[in-house]
């Protein structure tokens, strides 16, 4: 068996560069290669999910049914959500963690490098299964990314079974990825890199990894119960046998709410790296940032039913989940305050990463405020399942999570490729995205308040104007992302060499190694004062 592997005792890997050809990417155990794979995969999924979004917005450009069948419209919204959440946002953060965590803490690689490769390579297969459902009899899953029973059980197309198993292996990938990140952070820090010296990106990822390990198994549990109900005659979600469809929602949101924090905590981390650099100041309130992140994570387990205010919870439940949800605004507010305080009286410059980071602070906060409105149970009776919710979560996810990823890529790209970015093009990408995102999602607040339901292919005439504006914005935003692709490719091919520090105000171990970072870094751990 061991002929396949070359585990030669005493072999010193650190003197080796990357292998040649395709094998490098298939068999790699190098955290930088794996980070790169994650990031390209995520970009591919982002574009795939983006095409679906533009199809949705084209259908909604005008009232009436014009482009797609209503049934296919439901498949599009479902696949768009699943691909963006599990294929674009989560893998992008894992990719950034792979690249940056070992560099930031002075580790030679991730703690378990072979498992790291496995975590990545499961994903293309999982998404091949998920996307292949579009071509199956009965079509792709059409029950929304939250796949509520009984839509996803009794009334589901046969492809739901493929969806279930693809979720299973995606979950295995996430859990292994998270275990690797936690083990790396807890065990691989350079001497002197104490916990309270960790860069915030590392801290937020430590807590995110904990959330992942805690809730991905719950997701596996809920899809398993679905599988049993659909194929093996159980009645978990069927009241006729004594079960309850609402049980589905409880289990799903016990996963789902921490999941939204899985998609935002690493974003907090990235922004907390970038803002100090371009403010040329230390991060304001480092310790309070750490404690705020930890309390957000703890609270995120106690608020899940704010997604279920309208299912008919007992009054005590409505009240508990309302107040617990509002409590999360406190640590979130601490963070926003600290970012602003870091910028206060700093010597600010606005390179592309900083522009994205500042836009994150402003626009994420708008999403936080609409979340706060939704958290008020009696008001949510009105807003629930309207475009107001769509506006809320797109504000926290697009100019939130996605902007932070863009910011992180622009910030660290010179370290990866060794080349500086064309600032003019970066800024063009930023401004088009910034304008596009707001034109797309801001009007959705008004649509929702006026009562337009979500997940419909057609709507009443009074919603026409805002929908048209939103669709135009979506096209601006969508096509400007091609600029992002262009910028990344140009950067790889550019000749403008970056220095090791790259940005004047940058602090931390990742800026001590040359740019591009050598294939193996920190093979002898650096000393941290």
């Amino acid at each position, binding site marked *: 068996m061991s002929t396949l592997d070359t585990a030669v005792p005493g072999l010193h890997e650190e003197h080796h560069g990357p292998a040649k050809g395709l094998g490098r990417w298939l068999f790699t155990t190098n955290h930088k290669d794996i980070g790169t794979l994650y990031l390209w995969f995520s970009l591919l999924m982002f574009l795939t999910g983006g095409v679906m979004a533009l199809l949705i917005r084209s259908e909604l450009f005008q009232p009436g049914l014009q482009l797609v069948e209503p049934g296919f419209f439901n498949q599009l919204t479902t696949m768009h959500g699943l691909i963006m959440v599990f294929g674009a946002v989560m893998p992008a953060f894992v990719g950034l963690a792979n690249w940056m965590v070992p560099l930031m803490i002075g580790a030679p690689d991730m703690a378990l490098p072979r*498992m790291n490769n496995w975590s990545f390579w499961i994903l293309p*297969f999982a998404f091949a299964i998920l996307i292949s459902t579009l071509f199956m009899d009965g079509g792709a899953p059409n029950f929304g990314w939250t796949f509520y029973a009984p839509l996803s059980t009794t009334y589901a197309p046969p492809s739901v079974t493929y969806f279930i*198993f693809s979720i299973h292996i995606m979950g295995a990938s996430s859990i292994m990825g998270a275990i690797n990140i936690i083990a790396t952070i807890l065990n691989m820090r350079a001497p002197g890199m104490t916990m309270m010296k960790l860069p915030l990106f590392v801290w937020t990822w430590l807590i995110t990894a904990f959330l992942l390990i805690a809730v991905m198994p*719950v997701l596996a*549990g809920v899809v398993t119960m679905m599988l049993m109900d659909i194929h093996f005659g159980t009645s978990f979600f069927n009241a006729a046998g004594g079960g309850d469809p609402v049980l589905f929602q409880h289990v799903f949101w016990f996963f789902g709410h921490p999941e939204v924090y899985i998609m935002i905590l690493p974003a907090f981390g990235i922004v907390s790296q970038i803002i100090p650099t371009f403010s040329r100041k230390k991060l304001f309130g480092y310790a309070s940032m750490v404690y705020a992140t930890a309390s957000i994570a703890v609270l995120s387990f106690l608020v899940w039913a704010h997604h279920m205010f309208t299912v008919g919870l007992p009054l005590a439940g409505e009240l508990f989940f309302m107040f617990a949800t509002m409590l999360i605004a406190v640590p979130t507010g601490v963070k926003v305050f600290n970012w602003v305080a870091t910028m206060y009286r700093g010597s600010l410059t606005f390179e592309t990463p900083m522009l994205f980071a500042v836009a994150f602070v402003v626009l994420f906060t708008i999403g936080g405020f609409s979340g706060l409105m939704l958290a008020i149970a009696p008001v949510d009776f009105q807003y629930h399942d309207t475009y107001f919710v769509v506006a809320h979560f797109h504000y926290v996810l697009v100019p939130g999570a996605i902007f932070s990823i863009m910011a992180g890529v622009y910030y660290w790209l010179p370290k990866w490729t060794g080349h500086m970015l064309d600032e003019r093009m970066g800024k063009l990408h930023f401004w088009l995205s910034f304008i596009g995102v707001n034109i797309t999602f801001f009007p959705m607040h008004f649509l929702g308040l006026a009562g337009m339901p979500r997940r419909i292919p057609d709507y009443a005439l009074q919603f026409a104007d805002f929908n048209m504006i939103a669709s135009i914005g979506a096209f601006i935003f969508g096509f400007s992302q091609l600029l992002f692709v262009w910028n990344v490719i140009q950067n790889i091919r550019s000749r403008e060499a970056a220095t090791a520090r790259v940005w004047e105000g940058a602090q931390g171990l990742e800026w001590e190694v040359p740019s591009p970072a050598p294939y193996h870094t920190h093979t002898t751990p650096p000393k941290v004062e």
Partner: protein
Amino acid sequence: MSAHASYYVPAQSRWPILASVAMFLLAFGAATLVNAITAESGTGVGLMMVLAGALMLGLILVGWFGNVIHESRAGLYNEQMDRSFRWGMSWFIFSEVMFFAAFFGALFYVRTLAVPWLGGEGERGVSQMLWPGFTAEWPLVNPPDAEKFPGPHALVDPWHIPLLNTILLVSSSFTVTLSHHALLRDDRAAIVRWLGLTVLLGIVFLGFQAYEYIHAYTELGLTLHAGVYGATFFILTGFHGLHVTLGTFMLIVILLRVLKGHFDPAHHFGFEAVTWYWHFVDVVWIGLFLFVYVI
């Protein structure tokens, strides 16, 4: 075994990508198979894919773990590596705990909220309009719609096989600990004796469990179709049984390794990891015994 100075970063490896292909075969095959069973059409393709995937994954794990054992015995792993494995295993077990937590949560929700509400309790009593004759009870032997979900006519008596199984598993936690102590003393004969006994206890447990399932299906009418009691009963005991099976298998692997002369008092994390896993399976059973059978 000399501990290596720097952290061991393995060379390129083919195992992970092959394992991903195997997982793809398993997942796609399982979906195809299950759909075919429900549609009562031919199960050929799906079954082939599942079997191929399972075989492939099995061989890969043998090869992959073989590499790890080889590297470990060649002294490539330092103490830091050992700690990585420890963290890895601990968090893996935590993820397993959360997997069971989902099913325990479902059980508690159903018995303390959903079923009483169906029976007309409290503000949620409107559910009573669906099945006016329904009375709430737990264990639920008369589900609301008895045509679709005929409830069990009797239940498993906790004080027979389940109690016996509890005694078996708890003792096996002790025997595995005794085996670990023997390893710390480097008393090879005692390691094998206690480990062998642990494996035996695990197998007997599984035998009883299989007998109980047959009994439940053929005599008690306690099936997957028997309403939500049967659903929670089988999902909890079933996944636990699968974990015992896996644990027993892992015990057998380390038993074979002990027989081959692996492990010494200072280096035996592979051994310890399996004992951790076994204790975890034991603790889950105690929860099961209390909340599924007794209370």
